[in-house]
């Protein structure tokens, strides 16, 4: 942590810190995600900038006490701008031995460890794989850290003795003790969480009371025992003026869809099948049935996208959300939407692959699938979100392209930004752009005939709602005549249609913003070219190095197909182009092929985002 100044308040001094990284770590059942979220919401509420990273196993309840069952929640909050959840932690909350074992390597030297010693008994130590007789809390191996050994379980039990609650309920409250203690440590108010508890357990007052009591007990433990040498204070960040909320990428995706429906005037239809890490979008949207939203949990991934195609065909805005394996299953239907030329939004919240891969971990390895993953020549637009809040804008932009250009569009996000959160200065409804929808109601061909594939200046064909008098027509997956849309097996016509479909997508480049270097000089030595969720890490590092005088710049792409028209020109302005990606070099292949630029790969495929330090090292190596 970066220490600014020392203050003395009451008996424990409060140290002003510019930014802090806390890692809450425990068993899958220890409530670490909830604890982390509550701490985050409070930090956001008092005005810190922040970034979070929930990091949990694929199993709902992996074997208790083992390292495979460790569930982590990382929050980086500060009085300065925060773009990543942080490489290393200042504070590690370890609810058991396994949590300490998993997360200790990324705790800063001199960092603080808060442990629940009940999780360090013989059984837990053995489950975590410590050799017989070895307890890290007692063998001096943690001498480089400030270790607080607290019997959270016992203190919680004592706190709730006589409340009439069963042992199971009491056990479950122990995360509140830790949360209360951390609120005290970081001088954060408890009110926000107290309100949350009262709302969550509105119908179970005894549980609500027990949680609040435990939360306060945690706070008082910090305040009354003198084992803590200091407290910390992180002042509000100097963010742009405005009203903020904290938001995860999946939540922002859902809100983007609702907004896109409203600004287009089209009813929203989400066809989706449960899959990690995309399901939260389905959950969230299902709450908004009164907002012209219909959600349909389909029998499988294929039915999910096909029902969305049906909804778009019927004159609505069809959307499907999924992750890698689901994308593979939807592939044939994406081809259908491509040849039908109807609006459809496909949101792929990427995870580690191939196959089932790493369901709860993040990766950017579906870019080439999005670009080319169809049989035949099936071009479609691809865009990507760069941060949790950016999912909102990206979804609106994807929706605009899908609707105004009559095409399926793939929006890529990933597990990292889908589950991660950050403060969002949300727009008001009147600040949102309009999406123009033109349903055709008049014949457009000679003698009152209707030509289903007659195109406008964007090469876009007419959209007709079934129910429109006099324009009955049939469309389908077979190749169709360039004007009438009737089935055509004519060889030349197929060539023409193939070219038109490609030209139509490339023409979208006339209707999207030009690429812009976000940080650094317009010409120079090194351009770091990124896309998607690597934005935070690249931004942090390039900002820092540019400020220090290095000749480095950052360009982040939202539009991956078609690329912005000026991208090739920009790439030529730099001696070196570095492309960091959480894959084996997929954007790299695209820019190399298209612009013949000898871009340099920097890849990480470990289910984890880039740390700023590893990225910095790579950039410095190239700047030598």
């Amino acid at each position, binding site marked *: 942590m970066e220490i600014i100044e020392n203050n003395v308040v009451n008996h424990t001094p409060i140290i002003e810190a510019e930014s802090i990284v806390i890692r809450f770590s425990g068993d899958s059942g220890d409530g670490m995600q909830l604890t982390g979220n509550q701490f985050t919401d409070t930090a956001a509420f008092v005005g810190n900038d922040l970034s979070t990273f929930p990091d949990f196993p694929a199993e709902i309840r992996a074997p208790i006490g083992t390292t495979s069952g460790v569930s982590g929640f990382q929050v980086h909050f500060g009085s300065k701008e925060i773009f990543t959840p942080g490489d290393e932690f200042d504070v590690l909350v370890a609810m058991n031995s396994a949590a300490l074992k998993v997360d200790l390597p990324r705790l800063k030297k001199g960092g603080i460890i808060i442990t629940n010693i009940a999780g360090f008994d013989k059984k837990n130590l053995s489950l975590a794989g410590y050799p017989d007789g070895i307890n890290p809390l007692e063998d001096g191996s943690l001498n480089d850290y400030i270790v607080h050994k607290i019997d959270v379980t016992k203190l919680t039990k004592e706190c709730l003795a006589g409340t009439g609650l069963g042992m199971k309920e009491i056990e479950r409250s122990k995360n509140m003790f830790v949360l209360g203690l951390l609120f005290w440590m970081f001088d954060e108010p408890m009110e926000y969480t107290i309100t949350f508890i009262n709302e969550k357990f509105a119908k179970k007052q005894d549980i609500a009371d027990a949680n609040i009591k435990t939360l306060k007990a945690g706070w008082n433990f910090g305040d009354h025992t003198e084992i803590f040498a200091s407290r910390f204070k992180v002042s509000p960040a100097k963010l742009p003026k405005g*009203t903020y909320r904290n938001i995860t990428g999946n939540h922002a995706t859902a809100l983007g869809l609702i907004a896109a429906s409203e600004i287009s005037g089209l009813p929203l239809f989400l066809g989706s099948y449960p899959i990690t890490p995309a399901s939260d979008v389905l959950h969230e949207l299902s709450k908004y049935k009164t907002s012209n939203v219909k959600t349909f949990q*389909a029998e499988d991934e294929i039915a999910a996208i096909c029902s969305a195609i*049906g909804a778009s065909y019927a004159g609505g805005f069809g959307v499907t959300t999924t992750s890698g394996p689901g994308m593979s299953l939807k592939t044939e239907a994406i081809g259908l939407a491509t040849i039908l030329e109807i609006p459809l939004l496909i949101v792929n919240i990427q995870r580690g692959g191939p196959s089932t891969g790493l369901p709860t971990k993040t990766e950017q390895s579906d870019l080439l699938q999005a670009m080319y993953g169809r049989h035949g020549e099936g071009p479609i637009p691809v865009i990507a979100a760069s941060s949790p809040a950016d999912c909102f804008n990206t979804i609106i932009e994807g929706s605009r392209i899908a609707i105004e250009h009559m095409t399926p569009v793939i929006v890529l996000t990933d597990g990292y930004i889908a589950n991660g959160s950050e403060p969002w200065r949300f727009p008001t*409804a009147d600040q949102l752009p309009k999406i123009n929808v033109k349903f055709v109601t008049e014949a457009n061909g000679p003698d009152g005939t209707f030509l289903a594939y007659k195109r406008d200046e964007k090469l876009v064909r007419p959209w007709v709602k079934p*129910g429109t008098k006099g324009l009955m027509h049939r469309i*389908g997956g077979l190749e169709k005549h360039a004007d009438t849309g009737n089935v055509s097996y004519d060889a030349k016509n197929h060539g023409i249609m193939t070219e038109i479909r490609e030209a139509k997508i490339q023409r979208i480049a006339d209707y999207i913003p030009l690429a812009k270097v976000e940080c650094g000089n317009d010409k120079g030595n090194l351009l770091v070219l990124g896309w998607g969720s690597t934005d935070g890490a690249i931004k942090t590092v390039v900002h820092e190095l540019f400020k220090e005088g290095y000749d480095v710049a950052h360009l982040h792409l939202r539009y991956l197909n078609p690329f912005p028209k000026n991208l090739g020109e920009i790439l030529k302005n730099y001696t070196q182009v570095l492309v960091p990606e959480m894959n084996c070099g997929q954007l790299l292949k695209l820019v190399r092929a298209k612009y013949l630029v000898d871009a340099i790969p920097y890849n990480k495929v470990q289910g984890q985002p880039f740390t700023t330090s590893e990225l910095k090292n790579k950039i410095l190596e190239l700047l030598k």
Partner: protein
Amino acid sequence: MSTTTEMDVMPKLTAKDFASNQEVKWCPGCGDYSILKQVQTVFPDFGVPKEDIVFISGIGCAARFTYYMDTYGMHSIHGRAAAIASGVKTLNPHLSVWVVSGDGDAFSIGGNHFIHLMRKNFDLNYLVFNNQIYGLTKGQYSPTSEKGKVAKSTPYGSVEEPFNPAELALGAKSTFVSRSLDRDPKHMQMVLKRANEHKGTSFVEIYQNCPVFNDGTYFAFSEKETKKEQAIFVEQGKPLVFGTTEEKGIKFDGLQPIIVNLNETSVSLNDLWIHDERDKTKASILTRFADNEFKGESFPRPFGVFYQEERSTCEEAIENQIKELTARKGKPSLDKILSGDKTWTIL
């Protein structure tokens, strides 16, 4: 906007009005021609404007049907018509939706969508042209081909047990299960009308002859010499009677059906099984006549409406839930949705 006058009232459509301008390209003698004709014949009676009708099909010979109807239509991908139709109907419940499928499309590649469509019960019609063979791919056995079927991919005979589509539909909680055949136009028209009237997913299995790859499979049920012995046409409230001179009846012996000779004095019509479309137990036995023996006896193949049930439709349930929620909670403004409950302001 013009106001409605007498002039605007649409004259009654004819079968011809439902024919599109596309050349029909099934093989000569294909049973599909008859089905197309019967559909075009009965549609004017439904009184639904052409623009409100949507045909959705998958892949296969049957799926080409969509191109030949002058309505809205989508010829989609193999097996997925049910899923696409679900989206159409959910978004716009007002449309009259017809799915046209074949035995491979509906029960093999589209099997999952089929069973879920049945239980969800959208108000739409699902026609399966069952010819017990893959036609468009030139003659492989299908999931309804009989065991032992010699086809391109089974030169030594199929080893698999086939689906009985009506039994499958009933098991998947279909609210309307029926069967007709291409060579009985009147019967098919009657079943199509019943399907159209039924509120819910109407499953219509149509035995259809493939003259190229599976010629004559169903002739026993349509040809004069055999029809009366091998087929039984069920009607609501009527006893189950069949035979060359209508001399045979079906009655229950406990829970087992038996065939009785009505010429025997001890048997009267009153003792026979009276067809009741609302009786699921009877329907489940009736649908199994196709491929089951009861007490060692073979039963005639049944045709008609086997089962019908009133159940709220999926789109209705969706709309009702939205109405109820809107009445109770109202529609939040977009601004309210975007801000959520917990915000903070930086001045």
